């Protein structure tokens, strides 16, 4: 039983990292209708900025907050001067552009900081708490709590504020939103900025565990995309639940399903996607787009 609980808790903790990245992807998708494949690369860049600031002697928490602020502006600038040209155009082009951006950012990080593994200090101590025969690390728990907080804030932003309403209006129908006096361009920039902030949070949470390298977020991005599809691109809560589900199921399948084992567990989230999309094309929590004729 201890092993089972342990695997679930660990799954939730790794799932939380996927969730943060998935949340960022959802945010951009809600604001601009695009999938930003560079979200992982941007997260890595943010983590490097935090690491570099910390290296200059700035306390870790301050360095992270500064990196978060810098990330917001960076996200907004990328949207305004690069992505703006591809929004509302052919989505295939936009996909390629963001993948190109991912490659560019990864190369940029490598150029400045090399590919050596950098040790990133953890916000949380390496201590553990014993619960029901399972050992829970403070780091896993902290990661989990931070992501839940981000998710609730985001949901509140979308549903309970004027800004959230404007963001949603711009996403659904930019032309009508502009006629109603919404500043479309500014809202798009804010959407990208917020997504970059989420990415930064994910980056600094995962860096202590994986050590900081330019490609640190590559596989997390694949899982985050899986979570987006599984949870439904229109639901922040949905993608987080899906990300947790992926993290937990992957762990459980590896240990309890003999033929999967630790070598095939990477396939689990994708098998899950096929099954879910077969039954619910809009994802677990997604809304169907309805067209009135």
């Amino acid at each position: 039983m201890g092993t089972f609980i342990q695997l679930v808790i660990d799954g939730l903790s790794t799932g939380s990292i996927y969730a943060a990245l998935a949340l960022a992807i959802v945010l951009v998708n809600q604001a601009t209708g695009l999938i930003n494949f560079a979200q992982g690369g941007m997260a890595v860049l943010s983590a490097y900025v935090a690491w570099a600031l910390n290296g200059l002697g700035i306390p870790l928490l301050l360095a992270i907050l500064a990196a978060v602020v810098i990330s917001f502006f960076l996200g907004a600038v990328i949207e305004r001067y690069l992505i703006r040209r591809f929004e509302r155009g052919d989505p295939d082009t936009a996909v390629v552009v963001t993948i190109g951006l991912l490659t560019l950012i990864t190369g940029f990080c490598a150029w400045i900081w090399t590919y050596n593994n950098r040790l990133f200090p953890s916000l949380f101590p390496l201590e553990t708490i014993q619960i029901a025969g399972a050992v829970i690390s403070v780091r896993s728990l902290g990661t989990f709590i931070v992501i839940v907080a981000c998710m609730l804030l985001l949901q509140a932003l979308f549903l309970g504020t004027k800004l959230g309403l404007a963001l949603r209006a711009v996403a659904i129908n930019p032309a009508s939103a502009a006629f109603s006096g919404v500043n479309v361009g500014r809202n798009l920039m804010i959407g990208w900025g917020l997504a970059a902030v989420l990415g930064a949070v994910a980056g600094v949470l995962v860096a202590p565990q994986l050590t900081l390298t330019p490609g640190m977020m590559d596989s997390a991005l694949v899982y985050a995309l899986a979570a987006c599809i599984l949870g439904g691109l229109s639901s922040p809560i949905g993608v987080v639940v899906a990300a947790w589900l992926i993290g937990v199921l992957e762990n459980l399948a590896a240990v309890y399903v003999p033929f999967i084992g630790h070598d095939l567990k990477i396939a689990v989230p994708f098998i899950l996607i096929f099954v879910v999309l077969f039954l619910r094309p809009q994802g677990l929590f997604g809304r169907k787009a309805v067209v009135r004729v």
Partner: protein
Amino acid sequence: MSTNRRRMRVASVVAGIGIVAVLAAGCARGGGSPNDTDDGGAAEASPGITDDSITLGITTPLSGPTAGPGTCTVAGITAYFGAKNAEGGVEFGDGNTRTVEIEALDDEYDPQKAKANYDQLKSSVFAMTAGLGTPTNRAWLDAAIADEVPQVLIMTGDPIFSNQEESPWQLGFVPIYQNEGEAFGELLAGSAEDHKVAILSQNDDYGEGYVEGFKTAIEGADNIEVVKELTYEATDTSVDAQLTELAGSGADVFFNAMSITPLVISSLQKSQELGWLPSWFLPSNTSSPTAILEPGGAAAFPGVYTVAFAQSAAAPTFAESEDGAAFLEGLKEYANYPDVPAFPHCVWSYQIGATLEEVFGSMTEPTRENFMEALRDVSGFTAPLMLEGSTVDTTQDGQPAVSTVQVQKYNGKGYAPAESWDE
């Protein structure tokens, strides 16, 4: 309304990426079969060598998760020959003094890229050397044999490269995985107490080689029992689930044949979180005190063992020794590597440089054939920065250039020789 179509599009792109990820995880490459070569050597100069210079090629990971050690494989040899070139060059056995140029390309630890790099280099370099990685070096093993291009003193512990019949144009530099696993197994089997062993290994030749060597050594030892054996993929980002499972086995010795730096760090941490405190064995390339053990908090375990044949650059007395100082100076001066390297590969690569110089000194013709002959004729050579008891010996078929390793135990700062398990 196009949201639905767009969503389907995005879904299909994501599904595509997923499939690629799954395929990438599942594709392991096997080795090729050796070709016969005829060593009919004409004395006209091979590619990559003139009367005043020789060019060596390297394909190695300079980006991606193994970039830390990979960068080192280029830095060490560049530092060695940088210093030699500054003195005017290396004296060859044919009477010429040549400068040594290095052409290094990044393969990202990807076998396809390594093969492409080799194809790009093969007609402009005299020999390929020093590159890191088993799957990557295997990817162009057959091609190098067919093209009669030396692929020598490379950093892989795969025994195929040191078997002359299978690999006439190859020779590994570092001990084979079996040598390492066996050395640790022998130490453990010599213990006066009973031990339960948990094994975690990388799901490829690397992991299998270590486990094979270990099991050979403990065969017939009544006091050693392997209680649980698991694998992981080199592409995995977490092995928490495996450690949870292994911790449940109650083993007091953990044989961890793992080549991925961040995974070793997180294994050390996870194991402590679980309250599982066995004695550890770690491979020579993932047991660095500064890069791995300290961040992993390895001092918490009763013992962390590894094997080595070279001095550690992080050791406190290293920089004070003449060889150590020259090595660090060369890295800074010629290899654009100002830090004290956290990986042993920098020292190994430096030793490869010294070994090559030894070989160049007995070459009588500027040909690859003659080079291979000279290469297989080095014995009892002590390269700079070698540990007491280890030497370079290329005359043993089936063994790499360095096959003698010393088991060492972590003492909280660096490593000290371990004579027996119960000391």
